[in-house]
């Protein structure tokens, strides 16, 4: 394991994975994944299409059941818990493709974000919603609009805002830059950094290595379900990302299974 870390805010591990294996049916996707995320850290996992990034986040969230291995939140075992129990413990996911409730209003989407906190002590949902509106003022203007009618960027803001309503201890983000113009991505990533500076721990999964590493403290490269490289974000950025990326993985396409175009991984001469 590479010891270099850009800015380690703290050393106490929030999320800990050991020897994680998971897959679909008989097909193994995650092969022996180890990962530590410290409190206040931004860790990113980069990898090409189909390398298993979404599967990793789904496994942490309890959507995919692990075959073997350890998932711990501050020492508490998460393996075997239902999806809703994992959220209730503060591991909250912003899923790939945003997955908003399209026919429901912006406000209703946010209210549903706080569903896992209902009946629990903590800040009232209305206060949290105010905070989300402060982070993303555009959502406030559109709070009575159906989520499906938002622009792509606004939808991603809503997806992040909805997850924040659950008062996450660790926020899992699956390709938040997907399909968005660079300027919008910058805006959202600025907000993510701000959230991190207030103490939120982030685990970010991205195909776009450059933008992910510009935000993260630490990066891991995933290839065919394995972590093949790990380093501080600055050193990964400084290294020739293209050779890291294409040295192993081989071909990738810019189109996801559902036909959406993806944001290019590495823009030439950018």
């Amino acid at each position: 394991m590479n010891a270099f870390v850009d800015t380690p805010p703290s050393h106490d591990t929030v999320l800990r994975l050991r020897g994680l294996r998971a897959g679909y049916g008989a097909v193994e996707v995650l092969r022996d994944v180890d990962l530590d995320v410290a409190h206040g850290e931004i860790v990113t996992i980069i990898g090409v299409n189909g390398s298993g990034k979404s599967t990793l986040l789904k496994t942490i969230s309890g959507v995919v059941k692990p075959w073997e291995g350890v998932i711990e939140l501050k020492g508490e075992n998460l393996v075997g818990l239902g999806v809703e129990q994992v959220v209730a413990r503060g591991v909250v996911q912003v899923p790939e493709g945003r997955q908003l409730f399209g026919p429901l209003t912006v406000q209703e989407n946010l209210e549903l974000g706080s569903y896992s906190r209902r009946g629990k002590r903590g800040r009232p949902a209305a206060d949290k919603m105010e905070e989300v509106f402060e982070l993303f003022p555009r959502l406030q203007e559109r709070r009575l609009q159906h989520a499906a009618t938002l622009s792509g960027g606004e939808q991603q803001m809503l997806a992040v805002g909805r997850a924040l309503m659950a008062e996450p201890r660790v926020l899992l983000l699956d390709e938040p830059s997907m399909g968005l113009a660079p300027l919008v991505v910058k805006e959202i990533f600025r907000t993510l950094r701000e959230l991190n500076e207030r103490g939120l721990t982030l685990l970010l999964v991205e195909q776009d290595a450059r933008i992910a590493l510009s935000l993260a403290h630490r990066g891991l490269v995933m290839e065919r379900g394995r972590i093949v490289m790990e380093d501080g974000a600055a050193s990964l950025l400084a290294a020739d990302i293209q050779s890291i990326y294409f040295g192993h993985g081989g071909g990738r396409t810019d189109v996801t299974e559902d036909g959406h175009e993806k944001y290019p991984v590495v823009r030439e001469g950018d």
Partner: protein
Amino acid sequence: MTGQQFLQYIFSGITNGSIYALTALGFTLVYNATGIINFAQGELVMLGGLSAIGLYRAGLPLPLAFVGALIIVLIVAVMFEQLAIRPLMAKGVLAQVIATVGASLALRTAAMMIWGREALPLPPFSGDTPIRVLGASLTPQTLWVVGTTIVIVLALQFFYKRTLTGKAVRACAVNPLAARLMGVSYASVVLLSFAVSGVISAAGGAMVAPISFMSYSSGALLGLKGFAAATLGGLGNPLAAVFGGLTLGILEGLAVGLVSSGYKDAIAFVILLLVLFVRPQGLFGGRVVERE
């Protein structure tokens, strides 16, 4: 046909239409949450009617027999979900739909063994002295049916639009995975949908029993009409289901008046076929509920 007669057929259409509306609501609530078309929905209506009759004959006062029928059907609907639907969750919607067909046969057989083959009556909730309205006569039972239907629709509307649980049910209908990621238990939403749909159907059955007798086999036709009404509305929209039910009831009433009572039951078939051929998404079906 005179104006009075016309009004009379409309009244009768609205009464029957309210029952179809409640049955259609039952279909819609379950379909929205699960994608399942519950072929036992009509049997739940029948069970509501026969339970009310049974409890009344056992000596309970009418209001208690009504509430008792709702509780019985609630229990049956919950058991049905737990025993027939939940174990098939991983097998997919088709297996679950087939389970509902099985459940409908089982419920029909059980009803026949308990209440026999004869169609049984129930007295009207508050007498049968008709009220004159513009020359047409309105039975108090019609007011009960329409009033209860309005209360149920308003209560549902409040539940789905104003409560967090109701919003969670709608969220599940749109995107079950995302709803689970927000901490909503999909299994609970499915159970809740079956329970609510059972109670609503039971209310329909218990209220219609004083108007048309109820027998173990009444569920088939009631189910078909409720399904036609739900399809007319687009099978995903509760208010449209209510509209579909009332439309079907009024068309039936007019067919009886203008043509012959022999054609009454054919209307539902014609509507069902027309909708399926001409406008499969229903009258209001701009939105087809997408499921994973």
